[in-house]
């Protein structure tokens, strides 16, 4: 009989029921989308932030010690080097999946012999690197590493070059202005000790970094100019990392100080320091260091973004609860004679409340389910609009939305329940 009454009631008062369901739909939709994005946003925001550059820098052992000792020891360090052949090991480390990108760098001081060079021809630094280098990961997957994605914000007039374009180079905008270099020019670049090359200018780099005064060329070109075949001066790695905690900070100072189980936890968590440690393991005579400021700001921006989404979720659900409370109260008022009658034939307050709550629950859950479906779509819209990628909605989102919808229904029902309890059949049945 109870459900017979609920079912019959659900088929009338359609407008107010549809309104309640729609309100719940909206609330659930926003909650699903926000929570879906929130739980998946960690990776997305990190991937976005990689545009700000590497968060781990690998240097040769000697160079690292010297840079630590003397602030300005970079020049001294230029002789120590990493092996280019080791770089193939990077996609094989435990946290390889978290390595978004990396690129080697080798710098060399060169003299530019242009046609109209005077008695003192201009000098500049040429940087050798990978642009888009194909590598094979441990699982046999292909990865591409290099500057084109690591410096995706560079504006390059004329376009990027490829790793095999050994006769081409890019020139920083400042340098091009100062030395009167234009796209299509051929520069004779002298690396000293009789090593020189003719390089055609394929593009001009517009950026605010040091590259504005530099030449950028494929790694092999610079290795030849510097006479350092197979050598690399520095590797920048962009990795998705977990924000540091106490354990990570202690480990970063000295991994040996950890207990075995702490070591295990640390190694298997994607802290910048544990990824750096794993890079050390696969690169000969290398020291990998997290670039701290970047890592920490990533974590805090992420936390703030997630907090914002939680707030939006909470506000939209609170708004839903308020709207539902209004609609419910209006509906109970409209049905006062019916409710009075139920009480008059002997229904206790509790039974009437149960009846109304059941009607409300069915309506709200239907709206909530619809909202969840829409929210999944909405999450994808946000994902594509904001991050250019799909959002993977996790099961915890469904669970949270079910709980939240329940809470909103109950919270929205409270004012009308109080009204129901106060309603006296004598007042409504004789039409006063």
């Amino acid at each position, binding site marked *: *009989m*109870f459900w*017979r*009454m609920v079912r*019959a*009631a659900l*088929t*009338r008062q359609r407008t107010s029921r549809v309104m309640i369901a729609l309100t719940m739909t909206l609330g659930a939709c926003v909650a699903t989308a926000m929570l879906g994005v929130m739980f998946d946003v960690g990776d997305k925001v990190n991937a976005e932030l990689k545009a700000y550059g590497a968060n781990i820098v690998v240097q040769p052992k000697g160079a690292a010690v010297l840079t630590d000792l003397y602030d300005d020891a970079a020049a001294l360090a230029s002789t120590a080097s990493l092996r280019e052949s080791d770089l193939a090991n990077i996609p094989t480390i435990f946290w390889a999946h978290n390595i978004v990108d990396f690129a080697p760098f080798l710098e060399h001081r060169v003299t530019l012999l242009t046609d109209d060079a005077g008695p003192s021809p201009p000098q500049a630094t040429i940087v050798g690197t990978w642009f888009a280098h194909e590598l094979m990961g441990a699982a046999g997957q292909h990865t591409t590493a290099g500057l084109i994605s690591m410096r995706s914000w560079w504006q390059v007039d004329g376009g990027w070059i490829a790793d095999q374009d050994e006769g081409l180079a890019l020139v920083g905008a400042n340098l091009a202005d100062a030395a009167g270099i234009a796209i299509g020019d051929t520069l004779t670049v002298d690396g000293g000790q009789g090593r020189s090359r003719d390089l055609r200018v394929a593009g001009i780099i517009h950026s605010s970094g040091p590259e504005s005064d530099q030449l950028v060329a494929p790694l092999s070109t610079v290795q030849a100019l510097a006479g350092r075949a197979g050598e690399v001066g520095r590797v920048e790695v962009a990795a998705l990392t977990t924000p540091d905690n106490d354990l990570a900070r202690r480990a970063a100072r000295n991994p040996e100080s950890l207990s075995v189980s702490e070591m295990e936890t640390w190694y298997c968590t994607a802290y910048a320091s544990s990824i750096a440690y794993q890079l050390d393991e696969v690169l000969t005579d290398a020291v990998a260091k997290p670039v701290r400021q970047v890592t920490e700001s990533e974590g805090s921006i992420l936390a703030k973004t997630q907090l914002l989404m939680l707030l939006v979720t909470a506000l939209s659900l609170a708004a839903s609860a308020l709207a539902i409370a209004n609609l419910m109260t209006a509906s109970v008022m409209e049905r006062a*004679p*019916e409710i*009075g*009658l*139920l*009480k*008059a*034939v*002997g*229904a*206790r*307050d509790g*039974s009437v409340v149960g009846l109304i709550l059941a009607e409300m629950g069915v309506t709200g859950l239907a709206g909530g389910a619809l909202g969840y479906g829409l929210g999944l779509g909405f999450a994808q819209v946000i994902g594509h609009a904001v991050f250019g990628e799909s959002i993977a909605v996790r099961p915890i989102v469904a669970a949270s939305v079910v709980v939240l919808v329940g809470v909103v229904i109950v919270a929205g029902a409270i004012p009308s329940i109080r009204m129901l309890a106060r309603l*006296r*059949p*004598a007042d409504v*049945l*004789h*039409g006063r």
Partner: protein
Amino acid sequence: MTSIETAAPRPTEAPPLLSLRNVTKAYGSLKALDAVSMDVPAGEWLSIVGPSGSGKTTLMNIVGCLDRPTSGEVLLAGHSIAGLGGRALSDIRRTTVGLIFQKFHLIAHLNAVENVMVAQYYHSMPDEAEARAALDRVGLADRATHLPSQLSGGEQQRVCIARALINYPRLVLADEPTGNLDAANEHIVLELFRRLHEEGTTLIVVTHDPEVAREGGREIALDHGHVVREVHHG
């Protein structure tokens, strides 16, 4: 015909089913009922008459356990109900009283038999066969699955009566049951009441209609919350 100023209880052998002693209901300074006393023996058909605003509905609400008096004593089937809480009142209402309204108060989205079953549901157990039998008794067997909006006023009132009777209440209260009905339907309803009376059910019927009032064995007139007249018929 006797006419008296106050309704002094007449001595009866068995204890009355309903007994009011100095019942007063005040709304602010207005006394809707002012020190009303009366006894209703089991099996009586009592008519209550009086001008609009004289306190008839207020009296019915108190007797029907829908409302509490401001002061005075009400004994229903041996229980004092004047001081009871809402829950206890609803229990007595459910087990002892059947209510019939001028405006029927059927639930619009339930059909006739379901409207009867609602009263069964809150009393004990819904039993569709029994509910259909009750509709049959008021001549509505073929209307069981009609919604109230598909029934005439007289038919709706008969559903309301079937609902009031379904749990075999000892006391049936009807507040202007024929107020919204035409003469033909009024006769059908009165015929049902006569049958109830013959079966021994105690009936209190509020009415404006002198003809309806004369059907009762006794008629009490209220005015400004006082019992002003008591008439015995037949």
